[in-house]
């Protein structure tokens, strides 16, 4: 192999890493991706341009996710957003064999929690790393122009069940960000610290 072709090969190999070297920044274009849902149907983010999109990092084995979906701010959150014309996508970046990973356990959660929105599997963790998703749940709101408008916690109650809001008043950050976008306002709180389990990435 010549030096030039070796360099080209190295560049191609490094390209995906370079593209996702730094996590997505608020105000910048949201990294595009194509992932399959639990029925094998591909979902491409760029096909949703013109719509507000919420990405929810998901792990049905994580107790924070369980609490959020059974007693917390994620109960019916996707359905409520859908009624406002917002697309909600859950993404599971758990590696095979890790807690909450795999088709069956995610299908079971979808049925138990009556989730109508797609749950996308990102077993390689590429999309999770591109967004800098660290926790489950971890929410990202993308505006109609495809820019990241919010990243962080679903709310300010780090017990996952709305019982311990910081400052005493519950704030559903992601829902507020969506409301700001729908009203044509700048998102007032564009970044918060996510709480919950760590994303179970492949090592």
């Amino acid at each position, binding site marked *: 192999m010549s030096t030039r072709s070796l360099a080209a090969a190295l560049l191609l190999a490094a390209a995906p890493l370079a593209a996702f070297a730094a996590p997505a920044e608020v105000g910048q274009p949201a990294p595009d991706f194509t992932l399959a849902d639990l029925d094998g149907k591909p979902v491409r983010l760029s096909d949703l341009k013109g719509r507000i999109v919420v990405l929810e990092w998901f792990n049905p084995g994580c107790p924070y996710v369980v*609490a959020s979906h059974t007693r917390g701010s994620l109960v019916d959150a996707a359905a409520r957003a859908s009624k406002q014309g917002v697309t909600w996508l859950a993404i599971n970046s758990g590696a095979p064999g890790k807690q909450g990973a795999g088709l069956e356990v995610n299908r079971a959660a979808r049925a138990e929690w009556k989730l109508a929105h797609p749950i996308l599997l990102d077993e390689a963790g590429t999309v999770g790393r591109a967004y800098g998703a660290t926790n489950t749940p971890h929410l990202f709101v993308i505006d109609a122009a495809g820019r990241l408008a919010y990243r962080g916690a679903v709310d300010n109650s780090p017990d996952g069940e709305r019982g311990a809001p910081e400052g005493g008043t519950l704030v559903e950050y992601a829902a507020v960000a969506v409301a700001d976008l729908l009203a044509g306002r700048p998102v007032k709180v564009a970044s918060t610290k996510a709480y919950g389990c*760590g994303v179970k990435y492949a090592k």
Partner: protein
Amino acid sequence: MAHRLAPALAAILLTVAPAMAADAAPSGAVALPPSRQEAAAWTVALELPSPLRAGVPATATIRLTARAGHHVNLEYPAAFKPDERATATFSGGRIPLAVAASGPCPGRPGETCEVALALPFTPGAGRTRLSGTALFSVCTAERCLIERIALGAEAAK
């Protein structure tokens, strides 16, 4: 027939009676949850200070120890939810528990395995009883547990 069954019945009653007596609360007493509970990943215990005086604010301690590779999840808002058996008054229905003291995990100095959580309360008149549910979380690198554990304690006379 009845005559033949009587000794057997008596034997059964003799066997069961002490266990029933041990489990039953004395007349007028209130059965409380245990003051200490444990699982593979943690132990938790509720301790009352002494002495206590009616109307004078006091602080109980909930001692949580993570084990079996777990550490205390300090990001989780640990809390205590008193129940109707408590004779003290609290600042609300869900009391945030502040970390009063902490200790590292053996061999893992960056992680916390022991915490003393402060539970403020004000004793009422009569014998002081605390009873309720402790909410806390312990984690390993791979998984977190969120626990809701009943705890109770009664002040010595």
